[in-house]
């Protein structure tokens, strides 16, 4: 009797645990089915029109194809041709130049503007209203606007400089091979500085004021405050902004297409433009795809290197939270 009882006592929890487990396994399975149902519209669209085409570019890069007839498998010959193609390599180099110089111009100005707007000056809000206006225009709109500002015959800059007797500044800013790239970098910076200023403004507002109060008590001056508090605290913002700037300049297309279309000659023929030309004007889908893959790999490498270098764990923590 007593024995039976113990047996029963033993048996029940075990059985109960079994029952519980299978119920939770079942509900877990049901949950995952439901999850799959909820995820599927987004997933199907993303695989079909996002990840799929991206992998497709790698596949296309080993084909010779005009997009219409039947594709021919050519192995790595597109790739070999690419690394012997001086025009393509020049375009790669131009892209790197644009990347470096637009970063060098945009970062300090964006940081100054952002910090200024996060400060306590009067008139800040209406000045800020003016600063962010370029954000309202598309790249195409900005391209058209600047093409008329810089037009060498009746543009704003030309007329203004001529009238101010500064003839040496009334140049053909977009039409001369020596100047075109610099003009583009300047216009791109004009377009994107407002966006990065916003990032820096938000970043500065996140910094706790107590740090500055403490520094003030220690008798730190403005420079020391910036150097020892603001800059280290803005690390996350600098990384984010830099990754966006670099990957952005890797893919600049609209603005350059409108302003110079890669010219004069090939002075502004950056990667994305070169790829578009090759694939859609010369109908070389395979060779153009080599450039597409170069853009993608370059972009991914940049992001990964930047994130590693700065020990920035945002992505990992994003994934851990799942």
């Amino acid at each position, binding site marked *: 009797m007593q024995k039976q009882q113990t047996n029963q006592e033993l048996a029940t929890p075990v059985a109960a645990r079994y029952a519980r487990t299978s119920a939770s396994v079942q509900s877990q399975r049901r949950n995952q089915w439901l999850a799959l149902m909820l995820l599927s519209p987004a997933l199907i669209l993303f695989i079909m029109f996002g990840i799929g085409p991206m992998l497709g570019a790698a596949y296309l890069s080993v084909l010779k194809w005009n997009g219409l007839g039947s594709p021919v498998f050519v192995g790595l010959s597109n790739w070999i041709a690419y690394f012997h193609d001086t025009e393509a390599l020049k375009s790669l180099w131009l892209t790197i130049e644009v990347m470096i110089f637009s970063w060098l111009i945009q970062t300090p100005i964006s940081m100054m503007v952002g910090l200024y707007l996060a400060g306590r000056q009067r008139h800040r809000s209406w000045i800020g209203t003016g600063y962010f206006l370029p954000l309202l225009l598309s790249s195409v709109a900005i391209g058209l606007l600047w093409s008329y500002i810089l037009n060498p015959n009746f543009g704003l800059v030309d007329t203004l400089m001529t009238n101010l007797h500064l003839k040496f500044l009334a140049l053909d800013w977009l039409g001369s091979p020596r100047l075109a790239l610099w003009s583009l970098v300047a216009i791109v910076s004009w377009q994107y500085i407002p966006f990065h200023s916003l990032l820096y403004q938000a970043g500065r507002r996140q910094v706790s004021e107590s740090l500055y109060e403490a520094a003030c008590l220690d008798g730190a001056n403005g420079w020391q405050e910036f150097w020892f508090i603001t800059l280290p605290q803005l690390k996350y913002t600098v990384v984010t902004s830099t990754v966006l700037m670099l990957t952005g300049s890797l893919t600049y297309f609209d603005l350059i297409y409108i302003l110079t279309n890669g010219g004069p000659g090939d002075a502004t023929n950056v990667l994305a433009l070169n790829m578009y030309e090759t694939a859609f004007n010369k109908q070389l889908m395979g060779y153009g795809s080599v450039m597409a893959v170069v853009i993608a790999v370059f972009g991914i490498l940049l992001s990964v290197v930047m994130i590693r270098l700065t020990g920035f764990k945002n992505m990992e923590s994003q994934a851990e939270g*799942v």
Partner: protein
Amino acid sequence: MGPSQMLRKFIVTVLAVFWLIVALYPILYLLFESFRSQETYLTGLPWLPPKHLYFGNYQSVLSQGFGIYFLNSTIVALVSLVMIIIFGMMASYAIVRLKGWVSSKVFMLFLAGLAIPIQAAIIPLYLLIFRLGLYDTLWAMILPSVAFALPLSILILVNFLRDIPKELYEAMMMEGIGTLGLLWRLAFPLSKPALTAVGIFNFVQIWNNFLFPLVLTNNPNLQTLPLALQHFQGQYTMNVPAIMAAVTLSAIPLIIAYIFGRRQLLAGMTAGFSK
């Protein structure tokens, strides 16, 4: 205030005003030109506002069938946004609330998608759209726009949904509401701020997209505004005031949003990038 502080303040103010001129003046120039008649454009002083406001450019641009491009842009943007918001919300909810192998792997895939530049996928995308018979339809712009918007949108929504307290869900579950009911009746209404940010961010991206209409359409009647602007410039090379009016018109929704909800618009534009 010591002399050195005065000097610093002075330098900061000078720089601030200088930058204001750099940022603002090109936009003022755009407006000045768009209200000039063509004669005064060629003879007047381009850096001053026109003596008389001339509305003829806007009239002629609108009579050039600019309305249809506006409509195309609006349809593409709105249909894309509805899809992004509904599908993005469903996916994000599954990732946050239905944890497991499936949802975590899919989330990783979407995170990887953050690094894909549109330009790198455009060639196969063109071939795909062509094969599917979608070339020269508005869907050719809508579907890729949705696909490329999903990764960042899902990241923003997942971060937001994670912060909704479990107790709220539990309280509603007590009333016998199921998993799907919680999504429509709790997660959706609570996520309004995040959905607004996702909506604004993607609206700006899609409204201004040039590459998709350029590569995936050919029919002039299907052009969205950025492509229409480029064609317009080809036709009206010499009528600069008309082009400037067209450029201004193409930014109307953002200009209106800026006037009435600047803070929200700017916050939406940087959604997902600033913590």
